[in-house]
């Protein structure tokens, strides 16, 4: 494939270089505030070429809880990636609690959500939110993490993301 930027037969006229689609002036026209029409702003990264890499993977695994040795609450999902839908299902009797707070102990204290046996619990995790899990014993928890990359774009649009180059 010929790169049009290097092929002199298809060189872009000089006067066209540097011109970009202009942005609508960032003036408040209503209650919703300025709107970024740049579709490339806050885009989700493209899938990586390497197998197993990238932030768009779905993860499926069974998590075994354990009695904490130092009262450090384990992290079930480290929300440093994109938005994700996390579904957990307790297979044994528990008690197991999940929550966004680091300190979920005591498990029955109400700081987190108490899982019920064989009842899937679904939660959409915003970017930057960690999901912690706490238990008093060894339990099996089914975990399904499904990425929601379009939520990143929606969030950026709503929050007025910066346009590259401006």
């Amino acid at each position: 494939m010929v790169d049009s930027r290097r092929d002199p037969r298809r060189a872009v006229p000089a006067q066209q270089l540097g011109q970009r689609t202009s942005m609508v002036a960032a003036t408040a026209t209503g209650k919703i505030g300025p709107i970024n029409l740049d579709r490339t702003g806050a885009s989700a990264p493209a899938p990586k070429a390497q197998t197993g890499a990238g932030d768009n993977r779905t993860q499926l695994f069974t998590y075994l809880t354990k009695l904490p040795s130092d009262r450090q609450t384990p992290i079930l999902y480290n929300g440093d990636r994109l938005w994700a839908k996390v579904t957990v299902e307790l297979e044994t009797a528990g008690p197991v609690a999940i929550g966004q707070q680091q300190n979920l102990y005591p498990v029955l204290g109400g700081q987190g959500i108490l899982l019920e046996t064989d009842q899937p619990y679904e939660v959409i995790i915003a970017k930057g939110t960690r999901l912690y899990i706490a238990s008093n014993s060894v339990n099996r928890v089914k975990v399904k993490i499904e990425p929601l990359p379009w939520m990143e774009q929606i969030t950026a649009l709503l929050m007025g993301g910066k346009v590259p180059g401006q």
Partner: protein
Amino acid sequence: MTYPQESADDYVINGYDFFRLNTLLASPGDIYESTQSGNAFALGPESDISEVVVAYFDQQQPTFMNQLSVTSDRGFSARLDANNIGTYAPANRPGKIYMWPADLWNPDFRPFGFDNTNDRIILETPRLDVIQFFKQQQSMQPQRRDKTWTFQSVAMNPVTAARSYVAIPFYGRKYANICVALNAGNMQGGFITIQGHRLTIGDQSGSGSPSIPKILAVQDWGGRAMYSFQFNAGAVQSVGPITSGQDMSANVSGNGGMFDILTVDVTYGTAPAVVDKYFCEITVSDTPAANGVVQLTA
């Protein structure tokens, strides 16, 4: 008892939906533990013990421990949590779930009047079988299976009036079928005795075993035969001498499930010169016999 006992955590890690504690008792004071919470508890099919106490963490109790019983007639279908972080008071032991048999057991049990010099006994150790379910159970009807004890060759001590016992656990059972086959030629004037024993906690400083026996059937016979007794346990029965060639059967009604240990013993009228032996087979069940009428046929 296997030591260490089975681990409930290993059942979880290996993908099971239950934890089963299936072990022979080692002592009168066995206590077992589970570090797993459970949604239901029931006796297993192999259990000789008819009642198991389950202790769990309850912060509303002064000692933080509460108890319930699981029996052969009734399980427990609700969630009990193992509080491995908390501790019971005042022992400061971890707030796990503990289980132990409510039935009394004495590994040194000897029937009342046992002669330590001449008598012999085969004493079967009871088995504890309890299942802890991790998932909720829609319905649960715990029931022990019928169990058959077979003693192919029980040796007789060649001493006149010496008794040779077989003793089996009979906790909570409501029915037993007993077959005894022996060389009646050597047993002229001898006896087959079936006793139900109720264990108690008492002073053992005197002679004899701390049990309250009840003689269920004493039979005197004079010939070769297989003697079969079927009874619900509870009533006293005596049968008259049996002539040679006759089979005997007996159905005895009464209050089932009131004995801890069942013994069958055989004794010579006049001991022969050589060691003799007898065959004994005992089948026990939680289901009482349909016919509860005292009946003796020849």
